[in-house]
């Protein structure tokens, strides 16, 4: 079939290859290994030259593959970054919630209030001029109308309406809101009425001769059976006193302790303490002239709980619906 020469050449080539295989399998030193090393060295040198010639192309190749890797890396890192940022936001949110709950617990435990924690889920639009928020707790959670609502800093408002699972809270800064208050550390009482601005209340003192100074703290006076306002809740700090002593009425401008623009976790006081906690719940602050004392004076303290119904002033204070009441009582 094939010419003699073809057959011989083919046989020689195959035998040579197989000889290589056998010699390589045998391993060890010898002329074969030496020859192999020499040829490899020559080829290695040629390869170095070829590599230099091809370096622009291989460089482009590695550039391309590293670009591909980098694109993958960017994708991976981007996704990771996104996940971490989300986690960080969640953590930050959790931290804020924990801080809010801590504050709430402090107020509640010092004052021995029983409260239901709730979260603000909706806020009334500003153009309605009503300072109301919706919280995610309702009748099913034991919340009823006219319960006090607090946060970690102090009084926030009262329950206006309830549904099965949500409630509407009217904030103390709402223009329709009026809170019976007492200047901490004294017996001076008055009405803290909302002005519609988020950081100010008007505190009208019933006694025109009362001595009120900037920096005094206002706490709730308390209403009958703790509604709408439980006694002893911190309301705010006097920042300005208008009118001189002896005027018909004296009005103090009060900045609420609770920041009405940043409400998150609120507590609804379902059960006021058996005894008025007096001033013990007030925030610890150097600015306040009143240093909160956990154990208020015994003599003063015995009465206040029942005072709500006994004293003529207090029967009026709970009906804080209009500013007319304090003015009338201030007149005589």
């Amino acid at each position, binding site marked *: 079939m094939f010419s003699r020469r073809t057959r011989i050449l083919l046989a020689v*080539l195959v035998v040579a*290859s197989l000889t290589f295989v056998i*010699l*390589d399998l045998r391993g060890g030193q010898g002329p074969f290994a030496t020859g192999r090393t020499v*040829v490899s060295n020559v*080829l290695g040198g040629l390869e170095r030259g*070829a590599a230099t010639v091809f370096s622009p192309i291989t460089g482009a190749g590695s550039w*391309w593959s590293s670009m591909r890797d980098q694109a993958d890396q960017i994708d991976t890192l981007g996704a990771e970054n996104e996940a971490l940022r989300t986690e960080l936001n969640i953590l930050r949110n959790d931290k804020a919630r924990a801080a809010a709950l801590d504050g709430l617990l402090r107020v509640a435990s010092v004052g021995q209030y029983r409260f239901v924690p709730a979260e603000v889920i909706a806020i009334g639009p500003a153009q309605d001029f009503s300072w109301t928020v919706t919280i995610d707790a309702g009748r099913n959670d034991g919340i009823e109308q006219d319960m006090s609502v607090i946060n970690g800093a102090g009084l926030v408002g009262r329950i206006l309406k309830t549904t099965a699972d949500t409630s509407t809270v009217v904030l103390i800064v709402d223009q329709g809101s009026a809170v019976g208050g007492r200047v901490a550390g004294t017996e001076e009482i008055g009405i803290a009425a909302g002005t519609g601005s988020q950081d100010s209340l008007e505190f009208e003192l019933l006694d025109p001769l009362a001595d009120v100074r900037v920096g005094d703290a206002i706490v709730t006076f308390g209403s009958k059976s703790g509604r709408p306002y439980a006694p002893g809740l911190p309301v705010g700090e006097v920042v300005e006193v208008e009118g001189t002593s002896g005027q018909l009425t004296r009005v103090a401008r009060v900045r609420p302790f609770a920041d009405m623009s940043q409400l998150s976790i609120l507590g609804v006081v379902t059960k006021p303490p058996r005894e008025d906690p007096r001033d013990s719940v007030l925030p610890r602050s150097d600015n306040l002239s009143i240093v909160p004392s956990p154990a208020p004076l015994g003599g003063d303290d015995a009465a206040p709980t029942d005072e709500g119904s006994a004293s003529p002033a207090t029967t009026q204070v709970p009906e804080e619906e209009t500013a007319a009441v304090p003015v009338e009582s201030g007149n005589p």
Partner: protein
Amino acid sequence: MIWRQVLIIGTATLLAVLIEVTLLTRLGIPGATPDLVVVTVVAIALAMGPIQGAAAGFAAGALIDLAPPGDTLLGVNAVVYIAIGFITGLAVDPRDRTIPIMMGMTGLATGAAVLLTAGLDTMLGSERVDWEQIPVLALTSALYGVLLAPGVILLIAWMVRKATPEVLVS
């Protein structure tokens, strides 16, 4: 003029080996490395005939095993490439050498080279061969062989026509 044939075969295989180990292996192409050496052997066999194909296979196989970083058993590739060169030279009838047929032939050869080398290595006791990867490697190698075929075949045919027109199979 036997020395011209030797020169062509030597130059073509050496260049193919150098390009393959310095350029093609480093491009990071997925799957097998494009087997320019086998394609060259096939091209020589198609242009010059089976015996020259076998000689080219021997040269290419020896070179690819000797060239760093080759670390396989010396001679295995040579045996495989001899078979490939000889058989392709015989198999394709000079009368129906169309580009698609030659491309298909090259694809078969590059795919078969992967399988035969792996088989021989395994039989000779190499434990490196990962048979799970062999199908992918054989298929991608065949694909790259088909893609490389037209250019290499035309180039080798041109070289042969210039240097030793008397052996050109056409």
